[in-house]
């Protein structure tokens, strides 16, 4: 057979293959999997019962913070909401703990953290014994000498001086780094047995000329065992 006579047949075959390829491509299914994990832990004897709820501060409509710094307060309505209480449960009955608070940089604008201050208080409707700024909730037994370094026992949480006047001129309550919320370390066999609470209030000074945006940070409460000696 003359080779030239084969050519049309080969071309026809190629055409068929292309058609087949199109059919496959036009009704295709492709799958891919992604593994996902969750680690769940529990400590019924030593844990947070509640951490304070989220806080939102709105600068009034009208634009940017211009030529003056602006200060806002989380508790400017004079109430002490239960959802802003930090509650720790420690029923180990031996040993102590510490609670610290840190804040991430606001949208990577680290200077904003210089204006975020926190104080604590023991004012709430929780039933219990109040001692040095900590509420030992009814049923609690054990040591009641927890130190709350940022305790502000009375007065308004809607004025700047609450957050800046003594002792906070020397005690660090600015969330540009970790601050101590509860210092409850103990030497065995002393311990806590029950739930302990305090409330948190924030003041946030926004520097002048801060451009309009939504700024946010994550507040991280860390509960750490602080026990000297050995518990049974």
């Amino acid at each position: 057979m003359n080779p030239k006579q084969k050519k049309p047949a080969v071309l026809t075959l190629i055409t068929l293959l292309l058609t087949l390829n199109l059919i496959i491509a036009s009704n295709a299914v492709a799958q891919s999997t992604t593994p996902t994990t969750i680690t769940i832990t529990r400590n019924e004897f030593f844990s947070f019962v509640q951490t304070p709820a989220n806080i939102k501060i709105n600068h009034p409509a009208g634009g940017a913070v211009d030529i003056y710094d602006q200060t806002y307060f989380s508790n400017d309505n004079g109430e002490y909401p239960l959802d802003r209480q930090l509650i720790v449960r420690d029923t180990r009955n031996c040993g102590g703990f510490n609670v610290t608070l840190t804040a991430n940089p606001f949208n990577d604008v680290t200077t904003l953290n210089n204006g975020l201050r926190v104080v604590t208080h023991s004012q709430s409707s929780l039933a219990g014994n109040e001692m040095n700024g900590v509420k030992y909730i009814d049923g609690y037994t054990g040591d009641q000498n927890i130190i709350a370094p940022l305790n502000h026992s009375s007065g308004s949480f809607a004025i700047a001086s609450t957050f800046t006047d003594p002792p906070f001129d020397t005690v660090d309550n600015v969330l540009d780094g970790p601050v101590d919320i509860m210092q409850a370390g103990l030497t065995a066999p002393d311990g806590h047995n029950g739930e302990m609470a305090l409330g948190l209030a924030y003041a946030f000074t926004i520097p002048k000329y801060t451009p309009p945006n939504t700024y946010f940070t994550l507040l991280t409460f860390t509960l750490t065992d602080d026990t000297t000696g050995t518990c049974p």
Partner: protein
Amino acid sequence: MILCAIAAINMLIAPILINAQVNNFASQELTNGIIQMITPDSFNFDPALLGSNTEPISVYKYGDPNDPNQTLRILDGEESNLNFRVGLTISDFESSSNAIPYSNFSIASISNNTNGVDINNERLNPPSVNNQIDTPLHCNEQNITDPTICDTVFDTNQFQASGTLINSDPSIDITNTDELIAVADSSQYSIDNIIAFASGELAKITAIPAANLIRVQRGYSATEPTAQTSGSGIIITNSVSDEITILIGEEPTNYRLGYYSTAVALRGIIDQDQEPGTYTGTITFTLYTCSDLSCI
């Protein structure tokens, strides 16, 4: 021992927010004539801490729309008439001895852009304002300051389970400790099936030793094992959820060409009596393409 918990604080200055649309992805090579999908890498939740409350806790994982490794990416190099759809299923999250049913999980998608997908390639032919890609799970939030912010979307996009109800099983009463269960016809079961009793308790089939017997691992879910009455019914649930559609791309008249992405977000509901441990599940993304409307 260190335990952490987080709260968020955010500050809103002025009612007009920045609506950022980024183009900082590395360029991806489109392949002429086909639509490809690249799925997110591993998708791990932060550790969840169960306390002494009785209420379930919600755990969240938001992929970052700015991180290519955390996004679902569509490389559309097809210039003719191919439509596409991406569906998503999820498996139970299992540890060595327990499971969190996939029906405890919900899904949303987020992007930098209010249209639900981000455009990340210079070689583009966006045909319309929204690229004609529908994002039915889209949560229109650009700053996830509060993980609950997409709860409205999560509430309506829970993974659904489907399965087969076998009314006649168990064929005799069982106690809360029975592991070998008499059934009418064990051929309806398969090893590794997850089954649910009438009480809601999940169990996992570990063996099928006879024509009317199955061996199960009791208490496979957070629910404690309970006694079951003969004939009260056993539901064999599918090992993966029903599919939820995350992207629908009907080819526009003047075609679509480019690299599009959206980030995936998951919410899980963890019961307080869930057994502590590390649970692993699998998300399966399926890309369907078709030249007619059959796949979308």
